[in-house]
């Protein structure tokens, strides 16, 4: 599959949006060459604010810009947005429900060689715990552009998480991105694999492997982890034998938890969560780390087989 950088797509769509509306402003904390807000900075220097290495101040400035009618995009790495400046995000932005878009790079294990300090494996879980916050992680560069546009139309705080590494392109330009509406990328009635972000292409690969042993997996891109698409999860629980979730986030409070919350309150089916098993990772190549920390294709396949086995045992 063709690879494209999600952060490049973010940088490009910001410039497009800047052309379309004077209200778009961008804040950056000294990593614009990495997050690709540098493109916006070059094109619209008067609407670009580099706060220096000061993410807490960056969030607060965004709040002030939002109350006066601007649509601020706050750019940094996911670990700094969700943890260094967590309380600012919560109190200055989410509590008054301000129209701030926190758009960050280096989510999940994709900050691979930088090591555990820069790997944002807790970020989606932290963000989804904050009231009023909408939390999105698009699966490829095409989806990034659509997600950013959807976030602008939506009035209120949104957290968008992108990846350091390029991701396989799985979408065509003509698909529909609706916040809170997951996309079914592969049909199947034996089992459902729900993934988000960089794990969606892995889920699709695992589905092809399962096909070789006669298992047809439905694959869902749950790009919005909050508000989560309850309907599509319940339908999967009713129409397939069980669910596997896949995320390169800590296994606690991420996608697996979010899906399990829906399952326990609706239709109980066997479920397995593929994710990082409550541990910090290490420096290494992205692929190597995914394989070492339990996110390999065989890990997903095995989880699917465990689900089917549990289903057989309970029937």
């Amino acid at each position, binding site marked *: 599959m063709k690879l494209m950088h999600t952060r490049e797509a973010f940088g490009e769509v910001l410039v497009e949006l800047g052309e379309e509306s004077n209200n778009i402003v961008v804040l950056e904390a000294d990593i614009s060459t990495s997050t690709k807000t540098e493109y916006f900075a070059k094109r619209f220097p008067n609407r670009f604010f580099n706060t220096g290495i*000061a993410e*807490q101040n960056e969030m*607060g*400035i965004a709040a*002030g810009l939002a109350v*006066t009618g601007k649509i*601020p995009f706050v750019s940094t790495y996911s670990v700094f947005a969700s943890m260094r400046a967590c309380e600012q995000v919560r109190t200055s932005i989410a509590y008054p429900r301000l129209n701030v878009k926190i758009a960050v790079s280096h989510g999940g294990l994709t900050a691979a060689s930088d090591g555990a300090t820069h790997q944002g494996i807790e970020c989606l879980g932290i963000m989804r715990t904050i009231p009023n916050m909408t939390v999105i992680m698009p699966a490829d560069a095409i989806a990034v552009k659509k997600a950013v546009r959807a976030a602008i139309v939506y009035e209120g705080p949104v957290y968008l998480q992108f990846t350091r590494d390029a991701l396989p392109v799985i979408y065509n330009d003509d698909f529909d991105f609706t916040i809170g509406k997951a996309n079914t990328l592969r049909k199947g009635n034996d089992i459902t694999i729900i993934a988000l972000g960089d794990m969606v292409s892995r889920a699709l690969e695992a589905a092809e492997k399962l096909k070789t042993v006669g298992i047809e997996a439905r694959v869902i891109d749950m790009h919005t982890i909050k508000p989560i698409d309850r309907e599509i999860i319940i339908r999967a629980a009713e129409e397939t034998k069980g669910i596997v979730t896949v995320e390169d986030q800590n296994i606690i409070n991420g996608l697996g938890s979010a899906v399990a919350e829906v399952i326990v309150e609706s239709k109980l089916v066997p479920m397995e969560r593929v994710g990082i098993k409550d541990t910090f990772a290490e420096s290494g190549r992205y692929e190597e780390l995914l394989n070492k920390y339990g996110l390999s294709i065989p890990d997903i396949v095995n989880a699917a087989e465990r689900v089917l086995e549990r289903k057989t045992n309970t029937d």
Partner: protein
Amino acid sequence: MNADIPQLKRIACKLRISVIDMIREAGSGHPGGSLSIADIMAVLYFHAMRINPVNPDWPDRDRFILSKGHAAPILYAALAERGFFPAAALGTLRKKGSILQGHPDMTKTPGVDISTGCLGEGLSAGIGVAISAGIDGRDFNTFVIIGDGEVQEGQVWEAAMYAGSKKLSNLIAIVDDNGCMCDDHIDDILPMPAMGDKWQSFGWKVIEVDGHNIADLIRAIDQSKTFTGGPVLIQAKCIKGKGVSFMENQPNWHGQVMKEDEYQKAIAELKGA
């Protein structure tokens, strides 16, 4: 605008009485830091700020951010006195369903421009508002009141550095320099030596003023409004608990609950002032 100093003094006293009444009714709250800035609030809301209570969302109004959000009672007293909402609401402070939350909530209270309460955050929001004014070509000022203990928060210095370097002359910060925190006096917990010099070194014009002298406050604030060389920091020397003798300069009155006799004494002192 010519200021009526005796009238502003009367207003400040009235606001102080409101604060004591509100906190007594609520059964909790922060009297010390509210009384500390009563004179500053009287000057801002009844002399210096360009505001219109009938149109609290007026885009050209001056903005006010109470970064030390626990002093909410004095903000609510000023807003009610200025006509942003009926004074009857003051009795609902901190109660379920009230428009007056324990700390300022911009979504619930007319006249509150920014939600605050967790210390250190207000100045950053003020910078965002001030930048926005610049982009839109609006000439309003943004006032931010910060506690002197609050200045210990790292984010305040991130903001101080940024605003100074960008020469945001439509931004005015007022530090309530009363020397007290919640646990103890600042000098006994974490001293902040040469605070004014620090702000100055980051590009702020620093004006030191007696925070309880109405005439001096008027001069300082009026000067800060027209200063074009960068942001202004008004270091207001205040007394925490000002106006109630047994609360003055006593850190424990940061958030202590009044007993009935203490309430009576406080009100008697303020009414006799």
